[in-house]
């Protein structure tokens, strides 16, 4: 049993002229929630599909649960659960019919399937709607059903591709509680998202942009790297201050948040951040303070989404 659930080296995938995934090295440990954070088109889905054996990489090597992929994709299919970005169950079948269908496909025996389905209906609070068609369910209910189906055959590894994009914040919180329950049982979960708050819940995170892996690590560690580089400015004409700040070579990004301007400075500054800004922005009424870095700052810092905005 290897320590890592997933390792990739030089993983790349090209679609015609587009390099969707560019030379990605991943080391994803077992028993954790690992997040892919990135905007649409950053290669999250393509990477997940390659890891499931649905897409053949253009180059690079992958090992998933100790299996060489795509060569051993068929053996892998019995050990993974995959929740696709788009709802992929049958709208015209009921909750229990969808579950029974996939239980049979996964080769569960009749008795075993019935027990497992009852257990999952209870766990994901779907018992009261077992006879409801998937088409008539809310976003949160559909998402719980999809998770229940993805875990029907008790897989060791779960791939969740933007699982909460159609779900309200409260349901999202509940959903994450279920994910931590699964991790407690020893499952490994790979989840992709473009929500910062969601990414922050992961044990480890990979920041992806235009197919490249920009940063990998625990969210807290990634944020700690930015300590003393994020400054909040209050007072004065913040629109104007923002324009001035963005012209400074030391400033990577500046974004207004209500009554304050949040400024991220580059890594190579050689003086305290507040001193630099106070010296250059000569508007007298401004207040400066160092802020706790957020995951959004991490994202901006390691992608090229800075000054162009």
């Amino acid at each position, binding site marked *: 049993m290897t320590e890592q659930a997933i390792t990739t080296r030089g993983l790349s995938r090209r679609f015609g002229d587009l390099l969707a995934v560019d030379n990605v090295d991943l080391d994803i440990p077992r028993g954790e929630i690992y997040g892919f954070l990135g905007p649409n088109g950053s290669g999250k889905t393509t990477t997940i599909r390659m890891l499931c054996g649905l897409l053949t990489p253009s180059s690079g090597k992958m090992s998933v649960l100790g299996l060489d992929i795509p060569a051993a994709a068929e053996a892998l299919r019995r050990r993974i659960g995959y929740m696709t970005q*788009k709802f992929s169950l049958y709208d015209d079948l009921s909750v229990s019919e969808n579950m029974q269908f996939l239980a049979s496909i996964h080769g569960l025996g009749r008795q075993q399937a019935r027990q497992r389905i009852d257990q999952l209906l209870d766990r994901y609070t779907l018992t009261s709607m077992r006879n409801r068609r998937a088409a008539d369910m809310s976003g949160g209910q559909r998402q719980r059903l999809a998770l229940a189906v993805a875990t029907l055959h008790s897989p060791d590894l779960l791939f969740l591709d933007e699982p909460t994009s159609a779900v309200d914040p409260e349901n999202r919180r509940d959903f994450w509680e279920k994910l931590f329950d699964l991790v407690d049982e020893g499952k490994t979960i790979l989840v992709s998202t473009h929500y910062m708050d969601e990414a922050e819940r992961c044990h480890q995170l990979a920041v992806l942009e235009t197919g490249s892996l920009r940063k990998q690590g625990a969210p807290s560690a990634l944020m700690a790297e930015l300590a003393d580089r994020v400054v909040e400015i209050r007072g004065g004409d913040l629109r104007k201050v923002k324009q001035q700040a963005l012209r400074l070579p030391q400033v990577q990004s500046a974004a207004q948040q209500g009554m304050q301007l949040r400024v991220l400075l580059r890594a190579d500054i050689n003086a305290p951040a507040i001193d630099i800004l106070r010296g250059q922005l000569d508007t007298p009424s401004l207040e400066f303070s160092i802020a706790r870095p957020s995951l959004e700052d991490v994202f901006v810092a390691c992608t090229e989404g800075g000054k162009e905005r």
Partner: protein
Amino acid sequence: MSSGRRIGAVAGKEFLQLSRDRVTFGMVVMIPLIQLLLFGYAINTMVRDIPVAIVDLSGSAAARVIVEQVRVTQVVDIVSSYNTPAEAEAAIVAGAIRAALVLPHDLTHRIAGGETVGQWLVDGSDTMVGSALLALRNMPLKLEAGAPAGAYSSQPPSFEVALFFNPERRSEVNVVPGLTAIILTMTLILFTSAALVRETERGNMELLITTPIYPLELMIGKLVPYVFVGIVQIVIILGLGRLVFNVPLNGAFVDLAIITLAFIAASLTLGLLISTVAKTQMQAMQMTVFILMPSILLSGFMFPYDAMPILAQYIAELLPATHFIRLIRGVYLRGAEAGQLLPDIIWLLGFTVLMLAVATKRFRKSLD
């Protein structure tokens, strides 16, 4: 063992979905019902009951005999009579009648002299009507010179026609079994051609191919419900053909079942192959029509196979419908046994295996 369970799971799921798709479910029954009634009555290459008039200038007993003999052919329906050919012509122009039979003053003389006894004035605008009446030109008239009603000639008619299998020359007898081929081609290929594409379009496929299911299991599971659809349809068509059109089954049920299942299997697998080629349900539909058109026109359903040019015959041989029309007319109308029709049955079964193999090979559990 688990393979059987997976096939059963896919088949059961398809059944459920089919039963909930009201429109499709309705089509299963309505297509054969409506089309049979429509085609059974409307597609009639035999022309009957053409409205005609009589212009009897002779007023003789012989004329009445001739008119009676024309009437019993049932080709024409004598709806009126006129005093002059000019009146009859006007009626033809007006569209009240399609033709008029003019029997001249010297009718009895002509009969005695063995001359042409009368003249048909025919509306030539409908070629079918025209040719039907042209055929009457040589109809044998059984009468002697100046014959009174009782003096029919004992001479044999100039020729005799013996029609096998459809002595009354009713086209329904030919059309109804042929229609089974057309209706099954249409519905079965249409349903299965969408089978896999639909799952891809709705996003179900991405989940399905991440499961341990084998392509062949998926294919067979998808086809099973439609075998029953095909059987339901054929029962409707032939049952209705029996009840409404009085088309008798001359062969045995077993033979009918064998050839029908072979054709259903061939059609379903052809649809499945389309489903692996088409990218959208729209494309699948277009490809189905591409198969359907020649199946209607070249299979022998509309036009006699033997009358087609060689090239068209070769193309027709590629279509399952051609083989099935041959088979079902054999079993249904001529009472043939499956053993006598082996080449076409073997062709259909071979076609099924080939299509299933190609479809399975084409289907990949990947998104590449």
